[in-house]
């Protein structure tokens, strides 16, 4: 078994609220500096910028989890990851059809652009990506798992856009692969607050919208290798694998 540092919640410049400095190249550089082995690319409701990060990560020796941060009908943010680019692409289209038809105004909300290796804009997304979808949290969980993805409610302890802020508490029978806690708390605080969640796996991630926030907190995975399936197994705590939240 080896240990791997993972920051699984990073926004790129595609998110309207994400800094235009958070380009795929910068994210990989910053991840290297922060000694991260694994990063997750999770823009709001869209996974289209994760492909380039994945490509750059492969060259740099960083394993990139492709996915997105979906806003449910209740406005709870949830991370969804998929192993294959084709599934991320299909799921991005599926989610795009389910977000409210509000046009993005870049002056008010920020740009929503996908760039290529040369940092040329190859796609500008029209609908406002931070809007809610019309999927409730249970429907979203099923849609993610139907595609063999990983489903992780984001920053669950936060007072806004979290499972607990929107739905009051974590339903005890939720089919999740783990929960994410934000950089503003610690694992022991969470376990004291929600003792009934002690058997779940927790990750901690930066939710970075700016390069300087990447890797401020991380999840330490104990597993065989940095692969999608190993991460899945570690979240299930299979055969000695595990994951622990860390704040520097």
């Amino acid at each position, binding site marked *: 078994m080896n240990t791997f540092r993972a920051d699984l919640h990073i926004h790129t410049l595609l998110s309207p609220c994400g800094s235009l400095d958070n380009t795929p190249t910068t994210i990989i550089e910053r991840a290297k500096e922060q000694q991260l082995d694994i990063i997750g690319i999770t823009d709001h409701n869209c996974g289209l910028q994760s492909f380039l990060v994945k490509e750059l990560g492969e060259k740099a020796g960083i394993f990139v989890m492709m996915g997105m941060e979906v806003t449910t009908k*209740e406005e709870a943010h949830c991370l969804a990851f998929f192993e294959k680019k084709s599934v991320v692409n299909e799921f991005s289209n599926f989610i795009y059809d389910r977000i409210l038809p509000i046009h993005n105004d870049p002056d008010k909300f920020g740009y929503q652009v996908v760039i290529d290796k040369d940092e040329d804009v190859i796609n500008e997304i029209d609908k406002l990506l931070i809007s809610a979808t019309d999927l*409730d*949290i*249970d429907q979203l969980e099923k849609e993610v798992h139907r595609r063999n993805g990983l489903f992780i409610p984001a920053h669950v302890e936060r*007072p806004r856009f979290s499972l*607990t*802020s*929107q*739905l*009051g*508490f974590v*339903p005890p029978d939720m089919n999740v692969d783990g929960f994410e806690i934000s950089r503003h708390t610690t694992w022991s605080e969470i376990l004291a607050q929600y003792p009934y969640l002690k058997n779940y796996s927790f990750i901690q991630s930066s939710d970075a919208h700016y390069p300087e926030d990447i890797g401020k907190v991380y999840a330490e995975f104990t597993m065989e290798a940095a692969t999608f399936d190993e991460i899945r197994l570690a979240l299930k705590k299979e055969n000695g694998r595990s994951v622990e939240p860390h704040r520097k």
Partner: protein
Amino acid sequence: MTVKELAEKLNLTIYCGESGLNKEIAGGYTSDLLSDVMGNCNAGNVWVTLQTHKNIMAIASLKELAAIVLVKGFKPEPETIEKSNEDEMPILGTDLQTFEITGKIYELIHS
């Protein structure tokens, strides 16, 4: 005023939890953040919301509310209905939006 009388006067749909229709209404609360409702809604209140997840039932029962009113034609999810019947917590509905139904309920309670 009972939940039943409120439903009749405002022409609300009764989705489930019929056995709790005779509860007395002590006031009302309007919010879609369940964490906020948990912290601030009082016993005997009718709660106006657009949330339909089964967690609304847990909170309504915990806070001993009189009933839940769903706005804009939203309907409770199957698991929510099940809990509502078990806990005798009526879930009512209206096609009106939150501002309008809240105003009407306020008027009735305070008239």
